[in-house]
């Protein structure tokens, strides 16, 4: 809980450091990429989070990683500050919190569409447009794949779930059939 609050403060600070709305999305993408690299590359994680290694050496490693990612300047500053303060492990939480900050700044909603098979670009665009119309504001779409849905999609937006999957339809059919009363039993 405390980490979440700290992450939200850092995310708010990063948002304040980027006055231009056009710079928010690249910063968010860079932060998420860095979080992903940090989470998936355990060597990098153990190197950057290890207080036994000299801070300057770690700074150099981080700067090189950020340079290769071509991260925006505010993200580099934030990452350096986190490393200096020993909070680099909070990167994933800060990334998530910053996405919310960006969504608020850009007046858009986060939406997740889960489909039984990967969506094409056209389908993503279509769904994004429809969900934006449905929500009445821009939508940042995230697409997941879950083969257990069998077919169709499930959209989650603004705390609401719109389920158009075959799995749910089958479940509804099954429940309806089970709940349907039997005809009176007659003994032969």
């Amino acid at each position, binding site marked *: 809980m405390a980490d979440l609050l700290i992450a939200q403060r850092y995310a708010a600070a990063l948002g304040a450091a980027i006055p231009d709305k056009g710079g928010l999305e690249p910063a968010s993408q860079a932060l998420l990429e860095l979080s992903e690299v940090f989470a998936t590359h355990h060597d990098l994680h153990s190197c950057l989070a290890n207080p036994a290694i000299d801070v300057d050496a770690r700074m150099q490693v981080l700067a090189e990683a950020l340079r290769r990612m071509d991260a925006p300047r505010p993200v580099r500053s934030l990452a350096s500050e986190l490393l200096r303060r020993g909070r680099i492990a909070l990167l994933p939480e800060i990334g998530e919190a910053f996405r919310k900050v960006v969504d608020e700044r850009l007046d858009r909603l986060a939406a997740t569409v889960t489909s039984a098979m990967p969506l094409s670009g056209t389908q993503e665009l279509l769904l994004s447009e429809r969900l934006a119309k449905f929500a009445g504001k821009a939508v940042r779409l995230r697409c997941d794949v879950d083969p257990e849905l*069998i077919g169709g999609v499930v959209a989650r937006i603004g705390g609401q779930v719109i389920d158009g999957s*075959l799995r749910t339809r089958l479940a509804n059919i099954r429940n309806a059939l089970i709940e349907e009363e039997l005809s009176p039993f007659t003994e032969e």
Partner: protein
Amino acid sequence: MFVEEYESRPEFIAQERRIAIYQYFFEFLNVLAIVVLAVRFLRKPLLAFLDRQVAAIRGRIEKAASARREAEERKAAAEAKLEGLEAEKERVREQADELIELEAARIREATEHAIAQIVQETEERKHMELHHAAMQLKQELVTQAVDQLAERLKAEVGHSQQTALIEEFVRSLEGRRMSDPAESANG
């Protein structure tokens, strides 16, 4: 020997006879005197004693007669009571027969009622169990059928069906707004 010879002499015998007569005479006088004196002095107490004895005997006789009468009365009462007892016995037996009959009828009725209730409960229970079993069977059959259908659909649903489903989903969103509470339900 000498004494026998002396006593056998006639003078001695005559002397003895005279002495005996006088003795008898004076003994008679003594007895007479005793009798006169006894009559004189003992007559009243004797009569009183005899009267008392007579009265006592008479009282005993009366008491015995009274006891006898009482015994006869008791005997008569006992005989009467015995006769009453027979009647009472008969009455009690009839009453007991009636009570037994009533109790038997009550028990019979209660038993019939209990049997009917048990039969009804058994029937209800049987129907309930049958219904429950049928529902379980139905649930299993439906689940199996739906699972089989799901497996079949997994194998059969391709991109074209997925596209159709997405288009259907998109159509379902038309004209709906997020603020609608119904949107939180399945689409």
